[in-house]
């Protein structure tokens, strides 16, 4: 009895995680992706618990959800600031500008 219930629990957990991962990879909004990542970390910890690895679950909860999440959020602010200061290092616009400059020189 208990094993069938736990199996059902696992199936729902796996489906939720797959859905979450799919949304996470598909989303365009970076902030949304970060929140989805934090949620994914929490569910991943639950998954480790179900795989009978509570120590890994502890590490996952602490690192995946607790440290990486705030780190990403802080990084997001830096990114916004850079964008406002018109200094987007990695953007397509910059690359185009460089390309044009190169062409003019050439």
């Amino acid at each position, binding site marked *: 009895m208990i094993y069938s*219930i736990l199996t059902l629990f696992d199936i*729902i957990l796996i489906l939720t995680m797959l*859905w979450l991962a799919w949304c996470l990879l598909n989303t365009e909004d970076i902030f949304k992706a970060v929140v989805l990542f*934090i949620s994914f970390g929490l569910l991943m910890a639950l998954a480790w618990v179900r795989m009978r690895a509570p120590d890994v679950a502890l590490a996952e909860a602490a690192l995946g959800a607790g440290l990486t999440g705030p780190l990403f959020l802080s990084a997001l602010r830096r990114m916004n600031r850079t964008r406002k200061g018109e200094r987007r290092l990695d953007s397509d616009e910059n690359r185009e500008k460089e390309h044009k400059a190169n062409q003019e020189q050439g």
Partner: protein
Amino acid sequence: MSWMHTIFALILLPAIATGMFRILRGPTAADRMMTAQLFGTCGVAILLLLSTGMGNPVLLDIALVFALLAALATITFVRRTWHGSNKRNHGNPL
């Protein structure tokens, strides 16, 4: 091992899964972050129930970590991400 607690944990799992809609749809960033908080609280409850259901008291420690760190993410969000995004309108960041 107790099947009853496992069933209770199973009931709470859809509560998490439904919260996903708010992440996908939430108009403001805070709505999305609140869902992460919901995941934290529900995760704590599921872990508490599973610790009896699977007969493993170690899970209580994981629940403790969940409780601490879900809040950390929210606080970082409010102080770093959300506040910083339009500082021009309100000069007083906290």
